[in-house]
């Protein structure tokens, strides 16, 4: 009843909690968007194992034979490819993104392995300076069919001839393909790489881990999704440690501020508490009532804060992120879990101040107007 009929006092408290929750969830979700972007942008590597020779071009067929003979799982297609790269945009600046050069047949197999999708435009012609990209890549680069993706004058997106986008595949994974014949003729260095697919995609991780161990210390380099995951986790471990400290300090500051606000809030009700205690309400009843109200404000503010944060992140994603194919997960559980200390800390601090106030409380002082 007090909360409803004193909205002018209650809403600012709820507002502070909502803003705190929104701030924390927002910071964490934006931070999380970086590893999420890495996992999404390079998520294609979940579908296959990449193997390149080290120091000796002639190793590629040897590696292929070793893999085909020793792989611990049944193998699917093993493709020979070349690779170039382009520059994609990310929330933290430009990243390199692989443009795979494949044969006509392998391009289709590759697309199918990534889940397939509707092709808008056409496939690149054999030997032509043409590319087909997935929709997120096109969106990120701001390119459409007919636009030049790689160019002899663009040092960050170089190809000896202007490479035009002739097809866009509507699919979630990021992908850029060009004809291997064109690559072999014009690009340097002349290194053949291997794309190795497990027959059953569920075995891919096992194959990747085997290859990683098998070729450790040898003239081969292995590109596998689990390594990407590991490197991403390591890269962000320190950053998240710093984030934990920042969020911890933020929670402390917000809690102290809220404890002070709660104290002021309860001070304004001292007359009510004094009167009720004089009339015969026990301290424990009043304490329970106040703590229930505090819990309602704190939990209510937290839940509203989660909702507002979710909506704000949806808007940020729609307005700022999606047009550039940047990743942001408005349903990021971790971002919301970081806000859990907020209501708990505020409730504990508020409880402490209220208990302290009740401990020293003299209702006679209130009804005699000595304390009001």
């Amino acid at each position, binding site marked *: *009843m007090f909360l409803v*009929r004193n909205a002018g006092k209650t809403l600012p408290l709820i507002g502070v909690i909502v803003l705190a929750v929104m701030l924390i969830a927002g910071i964490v979700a934006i931070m999380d968007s970086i590893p999420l972007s890495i996992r999404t942008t390079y998520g294609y590597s979940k579908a296959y194992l990449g193997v390149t020779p080290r120091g000796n071009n002639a190793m590629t067929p040897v590696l292929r034979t070793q893999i085909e003979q020793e792989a611990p799982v049944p193998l699917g297609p093993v493709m020979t490819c070349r690779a170039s790269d382009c520059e994609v945009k990310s929330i933290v600046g430009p990243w390199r993104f692989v443009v795979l050069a494949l044969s006509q047949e392998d391009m289709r197999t590759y697309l199918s392995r990534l889940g397939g999708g509707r092709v808008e435009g056409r496939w690149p012609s054999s030997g032509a300076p043409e590319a087909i990209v997935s929709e997120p890549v096109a969106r990120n680069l701001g390119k459409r069919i007919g636009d030049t993706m790689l160019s002899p004058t663009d040092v960050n997106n170089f190809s000896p001839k202007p490479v035009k986008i002739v097809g866009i595949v509507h699919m979630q994974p990021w992908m850029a393909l060009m004809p291997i014949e064109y690559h072999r003729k014009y690009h340097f260095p002349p290194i053949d790489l291997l794309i190795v697919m497990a027959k059953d995609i569920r075995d891919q991780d096992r194959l990747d881990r085997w290859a990683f161990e098998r070729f450790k210390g040898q003239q081969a380099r292995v590109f596998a999704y689990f390594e990407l995951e590991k490197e991403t986790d390591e890269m962000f471990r320190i950053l998240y440690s710093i984030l934990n400290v920042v969020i911890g300090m933020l929670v402390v500051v917000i809690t102290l501020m809220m404890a002070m606000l709660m104290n002021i809030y309860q001070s304004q009700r001292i007359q009510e508490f004094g*009167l*009720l205690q004089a009339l*015969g*309400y026990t301290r*424990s009843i009043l304490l329970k009532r106040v703590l229930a109200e505090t819990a309602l404000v704190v939990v209510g503010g937290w839940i509203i804060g989660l909702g507002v944060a979710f909506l704000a992140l949806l808007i940020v994603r729609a307005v700022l992120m999606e047009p550039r194919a940047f990743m942001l997960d408005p349903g990021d559980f971790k971002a919301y879990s970081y806000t859990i200390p907020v209501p708990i800390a505020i409730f504990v601090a508020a409880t402490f101040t209220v208990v302290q106030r009740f401990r020293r409380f003299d209702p006679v002082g209130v*009804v005699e107007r000595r304390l009001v």
Partner: protein
Amino acid sequence: MIQVDKASLVYNDHGRDVYACRSIDLEVKDGEFLGILGPSGSGKSSLLYLMCGLKTPHEGQVLYRGRVVQAMDEQERASLRLNRFGFVFQYPYLLGYLSALENVLVAQPSGHRRAEAVALLESLGLGDKLHRLPHELSGGEKQRVCIARALLGGREVIFADEPTANLDHRNGVAVVETLVASRGTGSLVMVTHDPTMLEKADRVVTIADGELVQ
């Protein structure tokens, strides 16, 4: 019903003990209107708070129907105030966010006494102001709401601490008459510095410097 037995109440004033009440013997009988008269600072309010259990005597004791009030735990003393005693304070304390009717019902949180509360407010001339908030009521009306709150549930004793202090004489007399008329069979203990407010009292005791003088 209430027996004050050589009760003293001491305040500590910057390290010096000051007697608000000193060795007071007093009895409140069933149905009696007892007036406690005294000038400001004489200890009359302290005596009232001793009698109702809001204060604990440092010496002596207060008994309610033969039971020592100070021996009761907080729960029991609170229950006594909530269910047996009614209070009208000098300032008409009402909860600002509750209507007149809701303020009356505050006195009986566990009971279903809405009809009784409405009847009480109607009998006190506030039938058309049941749903007014305190800031929409005059001082006299607020005090009448406090009286209704004190009477709700048929209390054994009404303790009134200078209930007319903030009212003009006419309103003050009206409040006292209301208290006397509405208390039913309950006792009324009223503290005041104005002897004209105690004309209807069955008995008046005078207190000065914390001691009963007659």
